């Protein structure tokens, strides 16, 4: 058994009114991959901020032992100096600078402030070889995908003589192929003796690579599981995270399916930027009343683009095709018309596209349908408060009042506010784009329950998700998309992770 590289002892960190960490213990052995899991708000990010010196020594209680000594980091550069490097979920790269410039940003290969470019490029090339990224050092960050950007971050960490690499949700925005490659890279580094901590919500990935798993719940350490010599099931991890058995991650539902609500035929869309490239090809699908329909596919398959082009032409150009609601052709050429036709679109990115974060819950709830809380363009504040209060209790939005700003809510509650906004427009068909991304398991369950309720009320639900188990657990029918086409339609009985992947792979061979 190898020695302990990092030990955090009885770390307690309080913010005004909240105890974010309460006597947390973490032991990481040299040369292992240590997974840190827990629901949102469990304290993972706070713990890592304590470790890296974002919260300087003295603002928390407890001790950090690194490499056998007690360390008191007062800035991030203190911890980086010892080789403790964090890669945050939101990548810290400058889009319009090159890979080489990003890797050595703040740490330039220079003498007296004059950069040595040949040396910079040479060292960049070495680092890129190490992480297996085949790009030119002079390529701009903006020209490479998120998966590759993640690798640039890792190369940047390697350039700083990393001893403990901390990855915060490294695969959250990666597709499965890129995720696998990244995890493989981590295991390769492990054989070279690099220690890493990985924070993730994706339990299947953690199962694949972790040597030990530490579970946090409500700011405290629940347990540390050793993955050697025993098979730890996902359910076992979840039990630790939520503090109870999760017998069923998806609430049961008896589908009562009615007439066809939304019908889209031969939907063709050209790319928003590359205007001569056709992005969606003859996409046709339908959603019936009381039905939950899924769209599966890899990143870039055209799922979000289908939804957004349909919703008031918010994406793409040269859009052609036919849209019917209850059999009648409808005009969805602007968002206003799409809403009037009975469509609602809950965006993938709630912070960027869904919410006005600096506004309160009430203002966000009524934003898409102000006319129902106003008369002659004058807002009836009492009615508005009633509406917001109603949705707050119906969807169980946890907040101290409807006047709380959206920015202060947790991810799950923010998602519920976005849902409230669209429910208040009284749509017939709701398009939900990654409705549970980045929210914790308890809140996910609540979102599924809401989806079931809506279906029971006779609404049609079109759900886009990258998590296949989620689609399989909630949908009555699943369309599979790949490269801008619908390549399969699977009934609940036919659908499985294998059948979806098979459909994607087969369609890839054809083209």
């Amino acid at each position, binding site marked *: 058994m190898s020695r302990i590289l990092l030990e955090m002892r009885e770390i307690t960190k309080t913010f005004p009114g909240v105890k*974010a960490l309460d006597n947390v213990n973490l032991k990481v052995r040299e040369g292992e991959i240590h997974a840190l899991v827990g629901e949102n708000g469990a*304290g993972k990010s706070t713990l890592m901020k304590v470790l890296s010196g974002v919260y300087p020594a003295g603002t928390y209680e407890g001790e950090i032992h690194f490499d056998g000594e007690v360390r008191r980091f007062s800035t991030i550069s203190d911890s980086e100096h010892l080789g403790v490097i964090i890669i945050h979920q939101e990548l810290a790269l400058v889009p319009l600078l090159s890979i080489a410039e990003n890797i050595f940003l703040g740490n330039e290969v220079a003498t007296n402030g004059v950069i040595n470019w040949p040396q910079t490029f040479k060292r960049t090339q070495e680092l890129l070889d190490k992480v297996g990224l085949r790009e030119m050092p002079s390529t701009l960050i903006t020209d490479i995908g998120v998966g590759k950007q993640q690798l640039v971050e890792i190369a940047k960490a390697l350039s700083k003589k990393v001893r403990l690499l901390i990855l915060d949700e490294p695969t959250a925005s990666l597709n499965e192929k890129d995720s696998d490659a990244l995890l493989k890279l981590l295991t390769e580094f492990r054989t070279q003796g690099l220690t890493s901590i990985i924070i993730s919500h994706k339990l299947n990935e953690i199962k694949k690579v972790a040597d030990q798993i530490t579970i946090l719940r409500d700011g405290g350490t629940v347990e540390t599981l050793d993955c050697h010599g025993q098979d730890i099931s996902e359910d076992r991890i979840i039990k630790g995270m939520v503090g109870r058995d999760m017998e069923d991650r998806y609430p049961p539902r008896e589908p009562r399916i009615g007439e066809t609500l939304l019908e889209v035929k031969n939907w063709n869309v050209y790319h928003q930027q590359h205007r001569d490239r056709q992005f969606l090809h003859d996409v046709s699908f339908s959603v019936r009343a009381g039905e939950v329909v899924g769209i599966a596919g890899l990143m870039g398959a055209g799922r979000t683009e289908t939804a957004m082009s349909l919703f008031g032409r918010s994406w793409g150009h040269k859009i052609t095709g036919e849209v019917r609601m209850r059999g009648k052709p409808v005009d969805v050429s602007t968002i206003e018309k799409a809403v009037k036709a009975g469509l609602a679109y809950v965006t993938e990115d709630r912070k960027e596209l869904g919410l006005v974060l600096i506004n309160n819950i009430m203002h966000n709830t009524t*934003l898409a349908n102000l006319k129902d809380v106003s008369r002659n363009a004058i807002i009836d504040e009492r009615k508005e408060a009633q509406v917001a209060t109603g949705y707050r209790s119906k969807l169980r939005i946890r907040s*101290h009042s409807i006047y709380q700003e959206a920015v202060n809510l*947790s991810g799950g509650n923010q998602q519920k506010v976005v849902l409230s906004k669209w429910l208040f427009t009284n749509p017939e068909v709701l398009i939900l784009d990654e409705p549970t991304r980045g929210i914790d398991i308890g809140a996910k369950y609540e979102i599924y329950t809401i989806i079931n309720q809506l279906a029971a009320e006779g609404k049609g639900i079109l759900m886009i998700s990258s998590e296949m188990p989620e689609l399989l657990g909630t949908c009555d029918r699943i369309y599979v998309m790949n490269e801008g086409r619908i390549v399969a339609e699977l009934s609940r009985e036919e659908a499985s992770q294998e059948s979806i992947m098979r459909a994607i792979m087969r369609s890839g061979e054809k083209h």
Partner: protein
Amino acid sequence: MATDTTLPKKQPSVGDYLKRNIREYGLLVALVMIMIFFQVVTNGVLFRPVNITNLVLQNSFIVIMALGMLLIIVAGHIDLSVGSIVAFIGAISAIMLVKWQLPAIAVVPLCIMAGALMGAAQGYWVAYQKIPSFIVTLAGMLVFRGMTYVVLGGRPVGPFPKDFQVLSTGFIPDFLSFTDPATSVIKNYVALVAVVALVAYAVYAGLRERRVNEQHGSENEPFGFFLVQMGVMGAVAIFIGFQLATYRGLPNVLVVMGVLIALYTFVTTRTTVGRRIYAMGGNEKAAKLSGINTERLTFYAFVNMGALAALAGMIIAARLNSATPKAGVGFELDVIAACFIGGASASGGVGKITGAVIGAFIMGVMNNGMSIVGIGIDYQQLIKGLVLLAAVFFDVYNKNKG
């Protein structure tokens, strides 16, 4: 770090309330302090009836433009062209009134329309062609200034006919003369009655709002606060009303300004248009995806700004009694500064009409007070610049601490 704040509901304590609303009260306190300061150092000249009247006349146009500028800033934009619009409208009003002998009653609406058109011309590029407003209005600033020189031929034009000057130098006549103005202290009862009635209405409206808030469970400021605030504001208002009443009464521009302040406060706080502007400034993409026509809204914010700048331009021309090519130089900066001192955020989505108005008055009282004391224009600029920086720093400091 997501911290789920499930706080129990409770009445806010005075301290908490003060902390959370420090910006608004701080602003008001700052204005009162600045007033008291200059009242003392000018040996009481600041609050002399004639000076109060001057203060109103000198600042009305800044306040009027600040109303439009606040909407522009809340929408996430900026308008640098208002000083030039002021000059151009002054110029064309002079041409129409003096050279063409058109009646004032026709010239005023024509000028407002012209201002709206100038705003529309800029709004088009900002809203529909997505050119940053800073650049569009910088271009507008140069273009409209140039047009002013062209129209005036580089020379001032004036004087204006009497019926146009009334816009800026006129007073509301005293139709309630209880006593003989020659002997009585009170020369104009309308001013006094109007101010007292307004204060009474403000108290009534404030109480009613508290009651409504209580009914649907939203938060009220502590009652003590309400009393103190109403008391101070009421006392100041009645004092100013009394002072004005001992002179020539209510200036016409004060009434125009008051009506506009009330109108824009209502629009920003109670109407759907106001709500949409705040949402757009807070997150344009989310607003757009909520079905809000953000382009049209931006366009009309600039149209509105142009119309208000036109009104300000006429008030200035009428006050100076001539249109000069250099009118309004640098006004855009005073107007923008008023909004930022008043708590508007440069990134959009945040700001209040009342804040912008108080911000404008802080600038105005400082200008006026420093002039009376005899501080040169050089030091005035310096001091105003520092006040702006201090006010914004105060915002940032509070935000980081909270």
